[in-house]
């Protein structure tokens, strides 16, 4: 093994050597630097391998010919080897990234860079406090020096502010070191620790100064204006070094120095970290400058790590895993993003849409953003999960809330950025200059992140229980993205079929899961068929579609809460990106993500609360939660965001309406059932034993009823066909929620029937309407009309769809309605029931509006030549119609086993539906879908024949040939009553459809933004103010501690 001291020697030696070189020899200087850095990488990697392969013994490196307390010693152990390794890798790649800039600006730049790297290595390895001071100064000066790479005077100003702030901070550090020596008689960390220090007041003060200085080096909010300016002003390559490198070294320093203090820093570190985490992330919301935003995010992440560091004694054995997970994702993602920023070379985050010109960069950008936010399977997810669970075990609920709030704000601005990059206005100028040395580092970091995820997944407590096949398949699809769409589509469909076949025996005896698996898988396959109509590559569609379906299937397969949450997040992520693909869906996808993120975090907290007091993640722990009320409500609200309950529904219409034609049915007909399945699991597991659950269920019942009412009412007033359907989904999910809240046998049967029905008819309708929209290129119903002639098949599909939707006998919709009434009256929730019935009649209004405005009336001139939708849209529709017909005629095929299962389970043994052949009956009434179908069918045919008999000579005339007050109308538009169709209804009941929820959330939004915007004004830009911040910060922490 190579002695790690050679890292320092070689780096410094080559720095001095390069000082000898002349300008002509820059090439040589570059090669020398790369070699030196590569050597550093080699040494640290070999040590890391050495330690990870079972070696325990820590290497002590002595200098100056004496033993530690008297001379400076360095240490190389597992932790040191890890941190030097990551930093050296970063250094090597960072240098390669900056190589060209250094060449252009003269060779001295690489000298500074090498010295910076050397300083960071020493900082990690050294065990001497004064040595820390010296090399912190080296690192600070090198950082300030590297600012020269940007020429504008703003970077000089930032450099000065940085220097003066760091100067003040290190003054405090030096005072602390001096008094530490005075009281302890040593400068060596280990010696001090072994001497079993008696806590003299003086030394605690000295240690306080040392620690607070290190903490200030970590840029805690709000005493961090100087650092933000540097992030913004520096060359992005340098910012990457600061954010990932220096911060890493500093946080390891803190980790190293914390044991010195006999004071319990835990609460302070937690508070400092959390304030930083939440504060920076809130401020990030109002930030428009990309680099500064990354700075905020960076500081926020470091705050998060500080919190974890503070929690270290409480986290016990899990600490390392948690810290590592959060650290490595911050490390990789932040460096990657800063590097990408250097390629983009744009200030405003809006202009980053230029990234779309290069799909590799775009992919990496998204990858890093998601890594930061911590979506599974990205590395930080595992740590966050473990952290929250541990916190829950120790009842740190407020911490959980704060951490998740911070993460939420971070997600907010990162996703806004993500969205703007993906869908924002196109940059006109082609200014993306891509050089290999700029691309290589982020590419490698992406790969590292993937590897890190893999290892973290294996190392995490429940990771091994995950089914990773879908993830591998997604990765494969990313790699195959260059293939034409139809090949990928076939691949995906095949895979899903195979998966379904594999899955079936596992869940065959669980009808509940079977139903939902059927909806997810069959629905998925059907909707994917529509994708065949799309030509070209359809880049970036299939991985995310598979991600969504993988998530949904994961929900079904989940055996523990980890898997469940993992899948939940996967599904959310996939669907978000699918929605984002729509033409105008930027803001809607963003809203969707916000609500989903919030909802997911509530679920997260709910799971954590349930986990308290347990030692397994099994789904069953929900049933023995020690805080049933809280976990119940939080989980329920979390799921309700996905099912778009009233108040949480505002994301849905836009998201569903603006998605692509074949995505709308996926997210509306299928995805929403994910939320329903969550609710079902929740209700099944937590039951309704406690009184608080009863109250909650009652509230949920009302919520469902009101959602149904408002959703349907809003649907009536829509002019946009897809939006109408989307609001209708809100309403329908309201029914389902309502019926679930009954917690009775028939109630649940109702909900399940509704779920199946909603899947069938909403997928059908969205496919049909999506096809129409694809042909006529408008969403506005009043711009269509008379399309029945051009698109008879779509008309039939819509007709069947709305008959089912409205619950008109004989089709399957009526099954839901009938069950519903029986359930309502048995349960005794009459008024809610009446409300829901009223909603049902309202549904009838928009059904008519939908079919009339689009297909009936006079055809518009410009659409006279449109064609029927592609065959690939019709095939799934046909299958769905067949499905509806079967379900209508023989509901017993599905409902009987379902009912039996519900009756046999522990939960709903009472009042089941009794079946006699095809007739179902309850205590209240009876219903025979088969016979009704038969009677109505026969009657309809007879009457049709009767009319045909009577009107044998019926003469087909042109549609324009109408009785129009004795004249012929002069253009079709004047005859088509479709715009503002139910305006009188609006006069009567429009007050119910006031956008209260939208207003509320807008209010929340604007308040948050105002808070963010006014808080960030503490960063006045004045270097002096920043110093005052630092002083105040020190004082406040001091006063709190002593």
């Amino acid at each position, binding site marked *: 093994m190579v002695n790690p001291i050679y890292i320092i020697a070689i780096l410094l030696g080559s720095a001095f050597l390069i000082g000898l070189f002349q300008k002509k020899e820059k090439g040589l200087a570059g090669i020398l630097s790369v070699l030196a850095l590569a050597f550093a990488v080699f040494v640290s990697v070999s040590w890391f391998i050495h330690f990870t392969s079972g070696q325990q013994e820590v290497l002590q490196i002595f200098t100056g010919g004496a033993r530690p307390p008297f001379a400076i010693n360095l240490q190389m152990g597992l932790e040191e080897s890890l941190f030097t390794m990551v930093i050296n890798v970063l250094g090597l790649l960072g240098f390669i990234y900056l190589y060209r800039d250094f060449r252009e600006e003269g060779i001295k730049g690489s000298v500074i860079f090498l010295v910076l790297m050397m300083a960071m290595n020493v900082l990690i390895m050294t065990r001497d406090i004064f040595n820390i001071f010296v090399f912190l100064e080296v690192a600070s000066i090198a950082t300030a020096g590297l600012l020269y790479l940007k020429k504008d005077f703003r970077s000089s100003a930032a450099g000065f502010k940085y220097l003066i702030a760091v100067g003040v901070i290190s003054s405090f550090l030096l005072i602390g070191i001096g008094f530490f020596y005075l009281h302890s008689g040593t400068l060596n960390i280990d010696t001090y620790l072994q001497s079993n220090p008696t806590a003299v007041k003086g030394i605690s003060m000295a240690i306080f100064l040392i620690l607070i200085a290190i903490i200030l080096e970590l840029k805690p909010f709000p005493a961090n204006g100087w650092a933000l300016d540097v992030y913004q002003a520096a060359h992005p390559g340098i910012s990457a070094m600061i954010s990932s490198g220096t911060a890493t070294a500093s946080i390891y320093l803190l980790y190293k120095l914390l044991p010195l203090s006999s004071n319990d820093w835990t609460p302070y570190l937690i508070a400092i970290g959390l304030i930083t985490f939440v504060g920076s992330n809130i401020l990030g919301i109002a930030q428009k400058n990309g680099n500064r935003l990354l700075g905020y995010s960076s500081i926020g992440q470091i705050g998060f790590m500080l919190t974890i560091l503070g929690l270290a004694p409480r986290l016990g054995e899990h600490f390392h895993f948690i810290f590592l997970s959060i650290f490595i994702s911050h490390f990789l993602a932040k460096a990657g993003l800063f590097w990408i920023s250097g390629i983009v070379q744009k200030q405003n985050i809006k202009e980053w849409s230029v990234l779309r010109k290069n799909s590799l960069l775009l992919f990496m950008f998204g990858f890093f953003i998601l890594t930061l936010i911590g979506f599974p399977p990205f590395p930080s997810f595992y740590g966050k999960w473990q952290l929250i669970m541990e916190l829950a075990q120790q009842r740190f609920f407020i911490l959980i809330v704060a951490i998740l709030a911070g993460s939420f704000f971070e997600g907010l601005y990162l996703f806004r950025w993500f969205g703007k990059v993906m869908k924002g206005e196109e940059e006109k100028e082609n200014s993306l200059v891509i050089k290999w040395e700029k691309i290589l580092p982020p590419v490698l970091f992406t790969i590292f992140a993937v590897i890190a995820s893999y290892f973290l997944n294996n190392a995490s407590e429940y990771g091994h229980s995950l089914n990773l096949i879908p993830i591998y398949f997604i990765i494969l699809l990313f790699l195959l993205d260059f293939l034409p769409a139809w090949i990928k589509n076939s691949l995906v469909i095949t895979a899903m079929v195979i998966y379904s076949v594999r899955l079936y025996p596992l869940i065959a005896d669980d009808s509940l899961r079977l139903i939902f698996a059927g909806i997810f898988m069959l629905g998925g396959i059907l909707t994917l068929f529509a994708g065949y109509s799309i030509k070209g590559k359809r880049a970036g569609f299939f991985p995310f579609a598979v991600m969504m379906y993988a998530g949904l299937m994961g929900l079904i397969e989940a055996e523990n809460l980890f898997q469940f949450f993992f899948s939940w997040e996967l599904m959310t992520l996939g669907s978000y990106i699918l929605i984002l693909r729509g033409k105008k869906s930027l803001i809607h996808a963003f809203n969707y993500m916000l609500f989903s993120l919030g909802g997911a975090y509530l679920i997260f907290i709910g799971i954590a609360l349930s986990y308290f007091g347990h030692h397994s993640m099994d789904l069953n722990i929900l049933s023995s939660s020690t805080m049933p009320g809280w976990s119940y409500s939080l989980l329920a609200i979390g799921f309700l965001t996905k099912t778009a309950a009233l108040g949480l529904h505002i994301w849905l219409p836009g998201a569903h309406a603006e998605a692509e034609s074949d995505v709308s049915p996926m997210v509306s007909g299928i995805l929403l059932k994910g939320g329903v399945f969550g609710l079902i699991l929740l209700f099944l597991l937590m039951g309704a034993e406690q009184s608080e659950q009863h109250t909650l269920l009652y509230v949920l019942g009302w919520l469902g009823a009101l959602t149904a009412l408002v959703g349907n009412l809003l649907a009536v007033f829509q002019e946009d066909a897809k939006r109408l359907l989307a609001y209708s989904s809100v309403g329908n999910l309201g029914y389902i929620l309502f019926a679930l809240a009954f917690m009775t046998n028939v109630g649940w049967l109702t909900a399940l029937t509704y779920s199946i029905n909603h899947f069938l008819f909403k997928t059908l309708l969205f496919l049909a309407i999506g096809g129409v929209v694809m042909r006529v290129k408008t969403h506005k119903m009043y711009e269509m009309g008379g399309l029945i002639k051009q698109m008879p098949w779509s008309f039939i599909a819509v007709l069947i769809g*709305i008959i089912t939707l409205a619950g008109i*006998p004989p089709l399957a919709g009526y099954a839901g309605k009938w069950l519903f009434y029986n359930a309502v009256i048995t349960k005794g929730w009459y008024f809610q029931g009446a409300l829901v019935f009223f909603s049902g009649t309202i549904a009838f209004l928009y059904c*008519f509006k939908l079919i*009339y405005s689009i297909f009936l009336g006079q055809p518009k001139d410009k659409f006279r030549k449109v064609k029927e939708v592609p065959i690939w849209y019709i095939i799934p529709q046909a299958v769905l119609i067949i499905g509806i017909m079967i379900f209508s005629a023989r509901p017993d095929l599905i409902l009987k086993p379902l009912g039996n299962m519900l009756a046999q389970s522990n939960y709903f043994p009472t009042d089941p539906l009794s079946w006699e052949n095809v007739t179902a009956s309850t205590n209240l009434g009876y219903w*025979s879908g088969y016979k009704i179908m038969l009677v109505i069918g026969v*009657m309809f045919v007879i009457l*049709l024949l009767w009319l045909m008999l009577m009107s044998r000579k019926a003469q087909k005339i042109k549609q324009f040939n109408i009785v129009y007050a004795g004249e012929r109308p002069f253009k079709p538009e004047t005859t088509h009553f479709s715009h503002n169709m139910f305006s009188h209804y609006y006069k009567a009941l429009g007050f119910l459809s006031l956008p209260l929820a939208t207003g509320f959330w807008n209010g929340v939004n604007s308040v948050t933004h105002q808070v963010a915007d006014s808080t960030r004004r503490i960063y006045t830009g004045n270097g002096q103010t920043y110093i005052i911040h630092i002083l105040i910060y020190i004082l406040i922490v001091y006063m709190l501690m002593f």
Partner: protein
Amino acid sequence: MNIFLKILFVLLGLFIVLNWGLIMSGIIRKIIARVGMRRGIKVYQPYINLIKNYSLRSQLTHGVMFYLGPVFRLSGGVGIFLFMPLIYGSEYWSNFSFTGDLILIAYFMFFGMLGMALGAGEGGHPYSGIGVARGLAQFTAVEVPFTLAIIALAIQYKTLSISEIVAAQQGGIMHWTLFTNPLATIAAMLSFLGAMGHSPFNVVMAPQENPIGPPTEYHGTFLGVLQTNRAILHVVEAVLYMNLFFGGAGNWGVLILKSFLIYFWAVFVGMVFPRFRVDQSIPWLLKIPLVSGILAIVLLMIK
């Protein structure tokens, strides 16, 4: 019971109801005319209209849906008839009520309306669309008190089966829902006004503003079918209310009398009150009828 015999009785019942419907509308129109100091039409005038329409030679159709509209409409009427038990205690006159209960009838009402609306829609006349929009909008409000009443009945009688509801009302006039649950009856009878489409709720058809309403484009055979349906539907709806609130009927005589009186209630109110616009009728329906429906349920819940 033999299914063919059943069908025979069903057809017979349908025939009776159709005729009674035609006659009843003739009588009613005669009465209206007399109240208005006019001579009015002959009582058998509806028959003449019907025959005339069925035998008109000009039969114009705008398309498949236009053609199917009347079929849907008539199916809706006949369907409700089929699912309705007519005479209490008689298995012969209970039609196909074994297939479904009250909820089935409540929802099957939509069937005909939908067909009509679609057929009218394809006609392409703007007034059709306007009429349909008005009709549907008003209908949603009509259904609310009616539903409340149905729920009240279900609570009261613990069943949704019409036959059983009728059975529970036997044994004297005081057992009628009218007296055992007057609030529900009030709610239902007020919503009945809206359902019948007489003044003040007749803006849908608006006979003064000729030509308007869903059937604007229909004529000849198509109109005949629609008129057939109307005759059947009026009687069947009256029979429904009779079954639910007025003790049902033990024989055809009682049925005819009661249905006439119930129907006449709507006509009577219509003669007295002027017409509502839709945005007026909806709030009206959501006031007194709604409140009495809610009160009916509240009272039952307190019990």
